[in-house]
């Protein structure tokens, strides 16, 4: 019961942040609302017993990637989006949320029809924290044994990304 309530609160935060991202004109506002979304997502992860993932979400995603975004926004000092004269504000005001809600309803209907909503997850066990599911130790076991190769490959990927970013952003002399 508590889980359900918590879920709805955090879900509302997510959706609100997402829609705010769309609505705001200045990119810095959009970036900040995305941080709100990420934060609430991390809380939902905790609800699902994914402790490690929740931590990584906050530390890496919200704390590093989004900081990078904010930094670039401030560096470039781009202003608000300029609205083109012939664009319709009504369409965007009404259409976008309508689309989103429509999709949500579709998803709900589909999951009801396919019986997914009878599968319940979460609950007291999860909320109390399990010692074997979702903690860093368990994740680490899996990561460094079964999925070692992809792990190493992603480290190379990060290396390449670093080099690429350095080369691309370098000022021409």
């Amino acid at each position: 019961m508590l889980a359900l309530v918590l879920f709805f609160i955090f879900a509302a935060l997510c959706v609100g942040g997402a829609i705010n991202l769309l609505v705001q004109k200045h990119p810095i506002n959009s970036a900040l609302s995305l941080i709100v979304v990420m934060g609430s997502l991390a809380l939902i992860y905790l609800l699902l017993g994914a402790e490690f993932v929740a931590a990584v979400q906050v530390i890496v995603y919200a704390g590093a990637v989004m900081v990078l975004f904010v930094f670039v926004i401030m560096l470039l000092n781009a202003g608000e989006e300029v609205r083109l004269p012939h664009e319709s504000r009504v369409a965007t005001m009404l259409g976008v949320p309508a689309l989103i809600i429509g999709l949500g309803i579709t998803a709900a209907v589909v999951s009801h029809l396919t019986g997914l909503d009878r599968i319940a997850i979460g609950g007291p066990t999860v909320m109390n924290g399990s010692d074997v599911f979702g903690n860093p130790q368990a994740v680490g076991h899996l990561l460094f044994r079964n999925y070692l190769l992809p792990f190493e490959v992603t480290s190379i990927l990060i290396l390449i990304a670093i080099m690429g970013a350095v080369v691309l952003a370098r000022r021409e002399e």
Partner: protein
Amino acid sequence: MVPLSYYLVLSAILFACGVAGFLIKRNIITIFLSIELMLNGVNLSFVAFAAQLNKLEGHIFVFFVMVVAAAEAAVGLAIIIAVFRTRETLNVDRVNLLKL
């Protein structure tokens, strides 16, 4: 007990928001933010299914998604900076030198 479908619906909504922003917005950075939003929505799906199936592979995959998202954000922002230096604008409609 939260039904699985609720998580999936939330994931769908987040993903849809991301797609909408990706298509509608004109500021390149906002478009990137929408992409990140899409990725987050997908992450939620993975974690939800991992909890339902009681397998940790979902978490692993979320971990990799985050790594890739980070790398992609870094490189993408570098590109934006490079383009901004020459075009002096963050409006994608202005970056159209290849237009016929």
